[in-house]
């Protein structure tokens, strides 16, 4: 898991990219990261307010290379319209997590209380299992995950981070900026 590796080696950085919404763009970006030896901790991609562009949030783990080098290499890819490192202090980041827990019905109430504490929801219930949905910054999800481990995690999926900068600053191509 990322949180442990984060402690083990290097530093992680959140990079936000605005890319042309065209076939093969993900391949180009993932290929660049792999051939230059930049480790992707998580990568998300999805539509934006403009149908011709997609936004990617990549969390990259670097042991020796400066993050500026990554940003400059990514910027050279032609479908990448803009790219920037989002600094932790300017960053709103969220992640989505679904966790399936196999546990007897008698524990369900206790789990509901735990979920409430983390503003998480129980989204599926069956006699001996339930599914918890949680959103938030990665650290919060890490904490919830740790608590849930006690009850026996059967399956877990995390979406990877999405992020935006605080305030007015935007990552948009010049022709789309106000």
């Amino acid at each position, binding site marked *: 898991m990322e949180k442990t590796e984060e402690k083990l080696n290097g530093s992680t950085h959140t990079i936000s990219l605005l890319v042309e919404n065209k076939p*093969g763009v993900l391949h180009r970006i993932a290929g660049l990261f792999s051939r230059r030896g930049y480790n992707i901790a998580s990568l998300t991609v999805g539509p934006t307010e403009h149908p011709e562009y997609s936004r990617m949030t990549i969390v990259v783990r670097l042991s020796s290379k400066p993050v500026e080098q990554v940003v400059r290499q990514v*910027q050279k890819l032609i479908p990448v*319209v803009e790219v920037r490192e989002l600094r932790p202090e300017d960053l709103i980041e969220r992640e989505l997590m679904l966790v399936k827990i196999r546990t007897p019905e008698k524990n369900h109430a206790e789990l509901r209380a735990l979920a409430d504490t983390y503003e998480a929801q129980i989204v599926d219930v069956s006699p001996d299992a339930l599914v918890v949905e949680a959103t938030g910054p990665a650290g919060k999800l890490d904490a919830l995950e740790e608590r849930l481990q006690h009850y026996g995690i059967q399956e877990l999926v995390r979406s990877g981070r999405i992020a935006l900068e605080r305030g007015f600053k935007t990552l948009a191509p010049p022709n789309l900026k106000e």
Partner: protein
Amino acid sequence: MAKEKMTGAQALVRCLEAEGVDYIFGIPGGAILPVYDALFDSKKLKHVLVRHEQVGAHAAEGYAHATGKVGVCFGTSGPGATNLVTGIADAYMDSVPMVAITGNVSSALIGTDAFQEADITGITMPITKHNWLVTDVRDLPRIVKEAFYVARTGRPGPVLVDIPKDVQNAELEFEYPEMVHIPGYLPPLKGPPRFEDAATLVRNASRPVVYLGGGVRTSNAHAEVAAFCELLGAPVVTTVHGKGAFPETHPLCLGMFGMHGGRYANYTVQHSDLIIALGARFDDRVTGKLSTFAPEAKVVHLDIDPAEISKLVTATVPLVGDLKTMLPGLTDAVRRAFEGHGRPDLGPWKKRVMEWREKHPLRYRQEGQKHILPQTVVELLWKKTQGKAIVTTGVGEHQMFAAQYWKTSFPRQFITSGGLGTMGFCLPAAMGAQLGKPNDLVIGIDGDGSFQMTLQDLATVVELKLPIKIFILNNLFLGMVRQWQELFYDNRFSETPLADCPDFVKLADAYGCLGLRARTLEELDGVVDRALAHKDGPVIVDVRVRRQEKVFPMVPAGAPLNDMIDGE
């Protein structure tokens, strides 16, 4: 402009004509037949039928390198496309502008493992600036326009346009766009260039050195570089692609540095207190062991590619932009600094450099040697031509002998495979250079191993009657590998002897061109004269050189730059 109805293939031909393309290097095949059919009607485009697509790509490089224009090559789908890959990768490493156009199987067959199908856009993603798969014929003119624009602007490089056969056959209303709009390409730079900061470093340096790379050529900044170097009066070193960026016969020029650079050039860099890097990228072949590279030097790094800044060596003052437009700004700032605060006294530094140069010149000993030495051949060729020739090389020992002893005075006159180190480059590059520069003397300096990688295209240069002169420095070895085996693998010559070499003179005869051979110094002079005088088509000269001769000095891979071996 009125729109005209035509097929995608015809539109492609019109696009290439509009881009001012004259030569195309390629081979037809099933999936690119419609394009070749349309080409049959073009009066402007001249197609060169090569015998292997790799040669087509290298010839396009040679053409582009010699002329500064974009080189163009064609290949069919599948193996035609994959055969281009080495040439495309070579162009990518050496920033050579190239447009490669491939046919592909019809759209409906893509992804079905069809006959002669290869995912060439997927394959070439890491070795092109960009590539396009044309899925709609109406996009074709725009894509070709963008392809040429991307290939030649910024840091130049290869691009690839893959056109399925049905798209070549589909009809469109043709109109060639005048403008290019690529939102993510060449983003504007942030902030004004830091000329004054750079000039302050120059003013305060007592041991500066100017380091010139291939960017001088791609930017056509020869004159601007000369003005800067003359103003500074500092020693100048170059990479192999920087050869000709500043005249190597100039007293300030120390020639090539790096793994096979002169000792004096490497010492100069290692002892410098300021490196002014212009259009260069601190490749491992020039820096040696990075952690020990020029330990006391600050660095001014001017390059058009922001990703090259501080990639390997941290720039004290980075300057990002085109050399030709930026360098005059730096020159002016330095001049103002000199006028305001006086020139630094470079006398003691230049004296030291001169001492190194006198004490450790590039040298070889032909006297008393019964075999021809490869260095002798290069120097003889230079003397007989006064260096007025375009030289192309293969890759290996002969390439380094050429780089060391062929003094280049102008850019675009030393054409070699630097970054990728592709054997077989010499003959195709000579073909492309001679077509691009029909009035120039084109000399190939090749090795026996390197020559044998692309020799089938003797057929092409004979057919074109190109008066190129290929001198094979034949030591019956894969010489550079043999050199490493002798120095670092205890003389265990695993798979490097090429003793069963074909008879290159008979081979030339079989292809219908002049073949000559020199085995002794006495023969060499006359053979070189005869080869240079031969104007009726190509000539292949088999020069038998001393088999054990090695390239010195040499920085072993991973060693510090001043830790050179001489073999004496």
